[in-house]
């Protein structure tokens, strides 16, 4: 019942944030989400979020994690996790600056041990990419007026919302004591809704508005493996190797363009180009793989490094052409965690888990012959429950994306990620003496 109420709470908040995403003037996230399928989202575990990595080699029995399907084979508790994030993007280019803050859902997961520490199942939902931008430009155009041709100023506003999401169900299996594998098929679905508005500085010309709405869906397959190497350098240390791979998929894409006609106080919708005109098209969502190595120096301290690769150069647009702005993406990260809580010492600061990390992302975009790179620093704390099975993770992040050179936009990213992790022993027959 407790699970149910919390899941319900999470879904309500998720629904609210999704509803906000449907509004045409939604707050903007990264300006660069205008291009391609949006900005890739790599946060799949609350632990990894504090260490600037995905976390494919950082298993944690007390927390559900989407980072690596192989983890689910080590599941001991029935766990649930839900995450939200608050991000502020301060964007600057050669013409001005802007600031925008968004609150969004990042993930939800429920993990069930079928055979404890042997076979586990997981269902989850998370974002692959995020689209949320507002672009505004002032321009002029020569148009016919009553007496002649005149230069008419106009304002063009483009706002986009959406992203690619994934509902995933899978299992993890321990093959040997130190070797785990996992498989997670998923339904990828998403939407890119771009609203275009034109306002002319002339009473002769009415406002024009149209919305391009593209739906995506596909089945995807993700594989994971984890190898535990205990006592590598000394007793009670452990080296963990983890890797995941997601096969490239052809997203089935359908597009329609509608227009909103404003007449007095009423707005009427017009189906300009229905989906049947475009037909069903394939958009390639690229292959991606993440390889990580984590060293547990002790049960309290670990350091993890990771490389994340996405083959965005293979992405083709809705029109069937390779997007000239896309390139392969490589992100490398290094993070560490210090689990003071497990030492069992009294005091507030001794009851927390500390994390920090940094990552460099060479970006999946090349605009004006410039890679859109991201440098990200994170720091976070975990607040475990008294039993240690549940926790709240609060992670802060600061990053810099892009550059002002070559007429581009530099973004400073301030973020807070909040994750609720609940775990308990379920389906355990209690014995009363």
């Amino acid at each position, binding site marked *: 019942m*407790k699970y149910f109420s*919390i899941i319900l*709470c999470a879904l309500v*908040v998720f629904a609210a944030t999704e509803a906000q995403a449907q509004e045409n*003037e939604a*707050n*903007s996230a990264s*300006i660069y989400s205008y291009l391609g399928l949006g900005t890739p989202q790599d946060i799949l575990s609350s632990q990894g979020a504090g260490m600037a990595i995905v976390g494919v080699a950082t298993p944690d029995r007390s927390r559900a994690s989407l980072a690596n399907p192989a983890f689910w084979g080590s599941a001991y508790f029935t766990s649930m996790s839900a995450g*939200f994030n*608050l991000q502020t993007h301060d*964007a*600057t*280019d050669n013409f001005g*600056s*802007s*600031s*925008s*803050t*968004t*609150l969004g859902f990042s993930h939800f997961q429920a993990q069930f041990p079928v055979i404890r520490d042997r076979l586990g199942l997981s269902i989850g939902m998370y974002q692959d990419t995020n689209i949320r*931008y507002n*672009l*505004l*430009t*002032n*321009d002029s*155009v020569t*148009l*016919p007026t*009553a007496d002649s041709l005149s230069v008419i100023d*106009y304002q*063009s506003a*483009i706002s986009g919302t959406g992203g690619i999401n994934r509902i995933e169900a899978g299992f993890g299996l321990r093959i040997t004591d130190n070797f785990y594998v996992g498989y997670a098929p998923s339904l990828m679905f998403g939407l890119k809704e771009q609203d*275009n508005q*034109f306002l002319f500085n002339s009473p*002769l010309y*009415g406002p*024009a508005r*149209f919305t*391009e709405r593209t739906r995506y869906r596909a089945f995807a397959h993700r594989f994971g493996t984890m190898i535990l190497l205990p006592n590598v350098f000394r007793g009670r240390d452990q080296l963990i190797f983890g890797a995941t791979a997601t096969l490239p998929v052809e997203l089935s894409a359908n597009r329609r*363009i509608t*227009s909103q*006609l404003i007449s007095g106080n009423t707005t*009427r*919708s*017009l189906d*300009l*180009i229905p989906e049947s005109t475009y037909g069903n098209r394939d958009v390639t969502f690229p292959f991606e793989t993440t390889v990580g190595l984590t060293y547990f120096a002790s049960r309290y301290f670990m350091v993890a490094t990771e490389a994340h690769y996405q083959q965005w150069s293979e992405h083709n647009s809705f029109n069937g052409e390779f997007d000239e702005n896309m390139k392969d993406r490589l992100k490398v990260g290094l993070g560490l965690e210090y689990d003071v809580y497990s030492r069992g010492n009294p005091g507030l600061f001794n009851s927390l888990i500390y994390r920090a990390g940094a990552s460099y992302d060479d970006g999946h975009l090349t*605009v*004006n012959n410039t890679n859109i790179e991201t440098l990200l620093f994170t720091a976070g704390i975990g*607040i475990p*429950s008294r039993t240690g099975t*549940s926790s*709240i993770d*609060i992670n802060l992040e600061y990053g810099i994306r892009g550059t002002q050179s070559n007429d581009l*936009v530099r973004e400073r990213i301030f973020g*807070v990620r*909040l994750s*609720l992790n*609940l775990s308990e022993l379920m389906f355990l027959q209690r014995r009363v003496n």
Partner: protein
Amino acid sequence: MYTRITGLFVVSLITLGIISSCSDDNNIVGSTFIPSDRNIIVDTLDITNLTIEELVTFTGNLTYFSAGKYQDQVYGEVKSTSFLAPGISTLSPADSMEAGAEVYLVLEPFNFYGDTTSTAVFDLHYITERWRPNDANVNSQFSTDPVSIGSIEITAETDSVLFQLPQQWADNFRGFFNETENPIENLRANEFGFALVPRDDNNVIVGFRTESLQQDTLGNSFYSGSRLFVVNPEGSDDDDNGDDNGNGNGNGESSTMDNGNGDFVDPFPGRNTFSVLLRGSAFNIQRENTDYEGTSLPLLNTFEQNLVLEMDLEGRGLLDQVISRAEILLFDDLEAIEDLPENHFRPKSGRLQYYTLNDTERQFEVVKLPVFEPQFREGDNSYRVNVTSFIQNFQTGQSTQTRFYITSGNNNGLILPAILAGPESGERSPKLIITRINPEN
């Protein structure tokens, strides 16, 4: 423990929400991402799907009525006969006709179409059948007494005409006028009025005003326009000037009704006079030799010559476009308009009227209001009409009309031609200018 964790989580979430809601979003960066050619496209489309179609509308009880005959080199021979029905309404209920009272038909010309130096001569005939002014249209023909009761001459200098009606008719009319029980119905059943028939050698069509209530500079009300005018005999009880005054010599000759300043000059000083409104007016139009072979588009405001303009939105691929402005441009054909003999004149209304008519409405007399009334523009001799909303209504399925029926102005009883440049007129040919945004950028 769950309570503490969950409580902390919810508090944190609310905090994030508050921070988020306090933020502003004013993204003005990233303009370089937006393609500079945002596909704002201006299409100048020639309208070639144009035909002239004849429709019918009512001509009764309009603001004016027309009578005359004119040989127009574009419109052919245009001949119009007016029909006037007497009434009994006066300004004052106390007005009465004395025995021997004279009745005059007052006609006030308003405009002239044709040879403005010629004299229009009309024969006045009794109408011999009952008719309803409200039902009359351009094709109406009412039987008349072949014997004329007199003639009226009008020139461009004529301000008004008083024609004395036969005394026998005046005496009959007096009987109805003074009747206390159901006088209007008895008048309608027995006195059918007069037809103003142009003689064949006329070369001008005159538009006449119907009556209207006016006030002079002293604030006194009076009727002007075409009407009946009663002059009681000398020595009648009420010997003052009555409610209003006419002007004229009472012999069917033209004379001025005013002194040039808008004040009335009493044509019958010392006599008790008053105006009686006509119960209705109407006119018909007969045209012959209408085989115009020019490339122009001759229109009439009487629905006899409508320009049927088909926008062909579907064929032009405009249904899936985001239209910011759509404008139809029609131009006067200056060459055809100015190609008139010296002193000949075609009046014009200074506007066009755009109608949308379904099949049923076209089968009967057109009684609709226009959807657009573009004014004539002096600068380029054009008529421009913004049809953006009209096209958008078609796009959204709120309208199925893509066709306009265009007349040369308000059907007000005058004959007001307009000659527009046709599809072969180069820059002055009919155009549809669309400013749109191509959504497939």
